[in-house]
């Protein structure tokens, strides 16, 4: 019987950051969590993934029945979860094809906050290795993760998805140059420490911006980033006071509320004597109130707008996600061909058993009647010979099945019918 691949989790698409933080797996306790996961009766293999944008539990189980309940219970049992019912209502679950597709999309950065941003792949690898070390990865997850890494590679090399963050930030720089004469002497403020925000800042610095302020909810992260850019770190409580110094403001957080409203921006512009400000909103959901764009001398672009412009720059780019999803659909199919091919194990075992049964029957029949005078040595020779014969007969069909996974289903079906192999539920070994 076929195994079930399941993913249960929540991400920036479905759940607010506070909830994701509650469910998140603490890095230091990851081993314990993995052990707890694998001890669930319905779970045979498991990997945990816990980043700031998503928390996911990937499992392989022999049955589809109780696994969802088990994993939801497992997540709800996280100490920091305050309201398990609310959390459960925000979980998504994927099984089989959907689960595999989801993992591939995550790996290829199609499900990321910034589509095409490759950070997630490294995180995925790290969590896979951690699970492997604890011993919760079996051959299905092993195969699944390695496939997902190569899917990510294919999507990067065969589609334009990966260029997207780069082109988005060069569009931002072009726009800044249409608003401001020269970028030298201008100041940029970065709110949040998202990767795409970093990328945009790098582009701005390359184009002459020298003065950078960085703020982040975790001040240490702001300090760390500030070091990289020779920037000034600013405490999150204080950034609004410094806003009036900035010509370019980049929002790169996943805050569920707007960081900046239109009224506040109007106020800041007044203090700046209406000197223009350029707001770049890289957040999902939006960090800046769209009404800001209605204010004179304030220009607001959301990452989707930047993306639109970069699509205009490179015609036909809008089909890139479609292309990526096609690659993924292809890879999902091929993964399940492999998974199904594991089914040949019981068939082959049964087939071998059937041949062996025939051999034994015939041997006993002959040895008890026509060949009953044979010596022990001769009996042994006969035994060896028939056994070798059976193996030789079965050898080439079995090799053929293993090397032609795409036709395997047909072969297996034919074999069962020709040799009258009973399709009983048998225990698999994997």
């Amino acid at each position: 019987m076929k195994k079930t691949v399941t993913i249960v989790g929540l991400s920036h698409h479905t759940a607010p950051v506070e909830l994701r933080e509650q469910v998140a797996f603490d890095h230091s306790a990851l081993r314990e969590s993995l052990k707890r996961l694998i001890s669930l009766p319905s779970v045979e293999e498991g990997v945990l993934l816990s980043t700031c944008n998503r928390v996911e539990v990937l499992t392989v189980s022999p049955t589809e029945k109780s696994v969802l309940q088990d994993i939801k219970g497992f997540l709800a049992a996280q100490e920091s979860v305050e309201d398990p019912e609310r959390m459960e209502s925000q979980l998504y679950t994927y099984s089989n094809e959907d689960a595999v597709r989801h993992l591939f999309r995550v790996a290829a950065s199609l499900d990321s906050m910034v589509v095409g941003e490759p950070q997630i792949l490294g995180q995925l690898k790290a969590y896979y290795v951690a699970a492997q070390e604890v011993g919760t990865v079996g051959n299905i997850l092993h195969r699944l993760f390695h496939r997902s890494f190569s899917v990510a590679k294919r999507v990067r090399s065969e589609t334009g998805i990966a260029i997207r963050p780069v082109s988005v930030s060069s569009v931002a720089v072009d726009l800044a140059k249409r608003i401001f004469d020269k970028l030298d002497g201008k100041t940029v403020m970065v709110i949040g420490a998202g990767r795409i925000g970093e990328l945009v800042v790098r582009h701005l610095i390359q184009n002459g911006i020298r003065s950078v302020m960085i703020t982040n909810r975790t001040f240490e992260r702001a300090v760390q980033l500030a070091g990289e850019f020779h920037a000034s770190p600013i405490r999150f409580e204080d950034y609004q006071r410094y806003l009036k110094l900035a010509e370019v403001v980049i929002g790169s957080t996943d805050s569920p509320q707007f960081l900046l409203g239109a009224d506040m921006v109007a106020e800041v512009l007044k203090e700046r004597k209406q000197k223009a400000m350029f707001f770049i909103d890289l957040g999902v959901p939006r960090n800046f109130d769209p009404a800001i764009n209605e204010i004179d001398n304030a220009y607001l672009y959301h990452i989707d707008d930047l993306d639109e412009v970069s699509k205009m720059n490179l015609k036909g780019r809008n089909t890139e996600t479609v292309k990526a999803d096609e690659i993924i659909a292809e890879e999902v199919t091929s993964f399940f061909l492999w998974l199904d091919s594991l089914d040949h194990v019981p068939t082959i075992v049964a087939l071998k058993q059937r041949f062996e049964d025939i051999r034994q029957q015939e041997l006993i029949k002959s040895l008890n009647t026509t060949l009953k005078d044979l010596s022990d040595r001769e009996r042994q020779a006969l035994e060896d010979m028939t056994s070798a014969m059976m193996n030789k007969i079965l050898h080439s069909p079995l090799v053929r099945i293993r090397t032609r996974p795409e036709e395997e289903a047909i072969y297996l079906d034919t074999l069962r019918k020709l040799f009258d192999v009973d399709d009983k539920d048998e225990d698999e070994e994997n």
Partner: protein
Amino acid sequence: MAIHLLQLTVLIYLVATGSFFLYLFVGKDSYSRISPFILLIGLIIHSTALAVIFFHAGFPALTQFREALSFKAWVMVGTYILVQFKYRLTVLGCFIAPLAFLMCLSALTLGAGDAEIPPALKTYWLPLHVTLAFLGNAVFALAFGVSVVYLFQEYELKNKKRTILHKRFSSLETLDRLNYIFLIWGFPLMTFGIITGSLWAGVYWGDYWSWEPRQISSAITWFLYGALLHGRITGGWRGKKAALWTIVGFAVVLSYFLLGDFVFTGRHAGRFE
């Protein structure tokens, strides 16, 4: 001789207009260099024509509408060429060249020949007053140009649209700064234009201010630009607001210059009682 030079000027201004439009819509870099150059050639011929007229009459010919038009175009093109030297704002030529062409063409069609200069105008108050006023107007014409470009650029940025033109537009900051620079040049020129006119009237006719339509329209424009300048200096009047204000101010100037003298009467319309 002068008339042929003026005809040649009109022709060259037309060629320059075509070249600027090619630059605007086709966007080849070579057009951005050649267009101001063609305009400069036009300016040189135009200057020669004005000089010939001056030496022929022995006095600057500014008393008739067509003469004023031609002189105004000359001042405007000259100012633009200077600005182009310093700021490389080729896109402004797309306003100035056609405007200069139309003004000189109208001047030509309004007839030629030497008119008798009324004795009241045979004074150097005339060229002083007219040159200052026209320089002010020319600078405001440039301010108008940058303001229109500003509004285009602003509209595209706000609405996240791009047309084929946007690459020829300077940044909003540059356009806004030029608006300011033109304003601080144009406003004193205009002020001195009004003062010299008023003094002249005081000296010759004994009334410094006679409430004739041209004076009223000048006063309106002066207050408009004055308010804008004040707003800009004390802060806050930037960008779109300043651009719109500039455009309104120039519309008053232009509409009066084109229509005022036909509709209204007064010394500016050539009636000296």
